[in-house]
């Protein structure tokens, strides 16, 4: 009987493939694409301000509301934050990834790998809260700044509205630091993977042909690991765009996209506006990916 079944499937490889692919495809279509379409549809409805009910009629007035200066500022603020977090992550992740990929002994590599991914084992919220303690007014950083008599500098820095706030724990700088901290593993791993795929002989060949290590980095290593950088940046960029917990905990009164969505759909029940807001990151991500493609990030895929 079992034999007959296996023969049946052996003769029909396409059927086997279909059976394997059906669950993930179904999940993807219904849950993911379905949710996106629902969002898109909702964003074309509007909230009746008088009754507080969602009116299911096609309209562009929600988008008109979305594009008022305050909201555009939210988009700009979030995008700039995402870009800065991404750049900082690349700068921090690259040397680490390079070390893991090229120099670490196999044993060391395992340990570093664990060390990089270890934070992902504990709850995101716990880790974010622990930063509250580090960044708070009476926290470690303030204490240390006082110790080395740089508290004046810290206060001067915090007095600037663009980056500062009452304390590091309530400031854009705080948000930035925590974002970089929590998304860093997502940058290290893809870069490390990309660097590991660059054969050692290519680096040797470059040196052999007269290139100094700096030149080799620029002309060989960086272009070849660029897909990894882009893959990592897709994580850091999109995760920063959509996150609402970190701005909620460390933010001043300025909104970020995630927080805006939460407020509109949770607090005020304005689901159409929340949906329209969600379209923002999607559009930004599409633009981002198009730019990445233009830079040749996907040529190697």
């Amino acid at each position: 009987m079992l034999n007959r079944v296996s023969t049946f499937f052996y003769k029909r490889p396409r059927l086997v493939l279909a059976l394997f692919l059906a669950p993930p495809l179904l999940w993807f279509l219904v849950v993911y694409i379905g949710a996106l379409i629902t969002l898109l549809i909702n964003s074309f409805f509007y909230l009746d301000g008088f009754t507080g009910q969602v009116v299911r009629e096609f309209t562009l007035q929600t988008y008109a509301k979305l594009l008022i200066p305050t909201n555009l500022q939210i988009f700009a603020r979030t995008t700039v934050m995402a870009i800065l977090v991404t750049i900082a992550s690349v700068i921090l992740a690259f040397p680490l990834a390079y070390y893991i990929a090229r120099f670490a002994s196999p044993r060391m590599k395992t340990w570093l790998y664990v060390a990089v991914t270890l934070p992902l084992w504990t709850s995101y919220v716990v880790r974010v809260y622990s930063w509250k303690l580090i960044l708070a007014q009476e926290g470690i950083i303030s204490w240390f700044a006082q110790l080395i008599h740089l508290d004046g500098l810290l206060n001067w820095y915090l007095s600037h509205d663009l980056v500062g706030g009452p304390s590091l724990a309530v400031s854009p700088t705080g948000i930035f630091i925590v974002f970089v901290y929590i998304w860093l593993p997502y940058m290290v791993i893809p870069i490390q993977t990309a660097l590991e795929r660059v054969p050692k002989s290519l680096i040797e060949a470059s040196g052999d042909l007269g290139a100094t290590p700096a030149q080799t980095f620029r002309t060989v290593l960086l272009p070849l690991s660029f897909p990894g950088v882009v893959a990592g940046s897709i994580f850091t960029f999109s995760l920063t765009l959509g996150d609402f917990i970190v701005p909620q905990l460390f933010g001043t009164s300025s909104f970020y996209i995630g927080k805006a969505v939460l407020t509109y759909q949770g607090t005020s029940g304005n689901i159409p506006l929340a949906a329209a807001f969600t379209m923002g990151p999607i559009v930004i991500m599409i633009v981002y990916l198009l730019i990445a493609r233009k830079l040749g990030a996907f040529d190697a895929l």
Partner: protein
Amino acid sequence: MSDTAILFKNVSRHFGEIRAVDNVELEINDGEFFSMLGPSGSGKTTCLRMIAGFDRPTSGQIILYGQDVSNLPPYERPVNTVFQDYALFPHMTIEENIGYGLMIKGIAKDERAQRVEEMLKLVRLPGYGQRKPSQLSGGQRQRVALARALINHPKVLLLDEPLGALDLKLRQQMQVELKNIQREVGITFIFVTHDQEEALTMSDRIAVFNEGKIEQVGSPADVYEHPSTPFVAGFVGTSNLVSGEVAQRITGSSKRFSVRPEKIHLAKSNEQAASDMFVANGSVRDVVYLGLYTRYLVELEGGGDLVVVEQNLKTTSMDVTGVKGQKVQLFWKKDHVSYVGG
């Protein structure tokens, strides 16, 4: 001084306990095609890498045209390498690959393009400049790697088993081509290989490596016909070693000797041996018909085997296989014996 391209002075390279290269003394002449031959792990590649600068000697000196380069980084050495896996930059076109060294040197685009074009002609790939390495066959990539190295006019070109990945036909063709290119450019070539036939075909001189040491340096004919150690006798060509009592019986001395299979004449009837010949008696244990020639395994009286190869000038497979099990006499010239010691 100018006649010496490379000089190894007591060079050793240890990896922990392992002596990859052990006290090597070597002199390579200017303009010669020099092969480093040996099994994997014999230290030949490590020697090459130390000349290139990818590895540094644990002790000793490497002198390149009178200059001690032992501690120079690769990018400051006037040598270039053709890698075993070619190591072409996958994100660059063929033109960019070949012009890479010139680009690094800051040579203007026009001159670069012109010299790349010349190189493409030299390696018979004109018109391939705009392709990517992935669009080329193994043999073509190999020639690009050669062009990329040669364009920099290195004083020495290092080749690390560059033909290893090619199939037999292409390999034989590239052997001839490499030799021609070397004659044309007149640069010292150092060629690492584990393939004795390849080394014999192309080289002016060969160094045979074993366990981090050089066993013998000499011309192909020297190394083949007069191996100085049992290892060389065995690694270059087929090992036909005879020693002890059996050797005593044949040559009158118990010194270990080696004789090449094709030098031995297999006499089927009672032939008279000339005075400059050694004679041995035995019986044919195995016969392998190989078309062009036949290989016989002859068990000697008193123990030990000799491999004998004879061309099938007048014989067919029917004739030769019939010899199996028969008693035979073996003749070979006394000159063709090498006493290998050990």
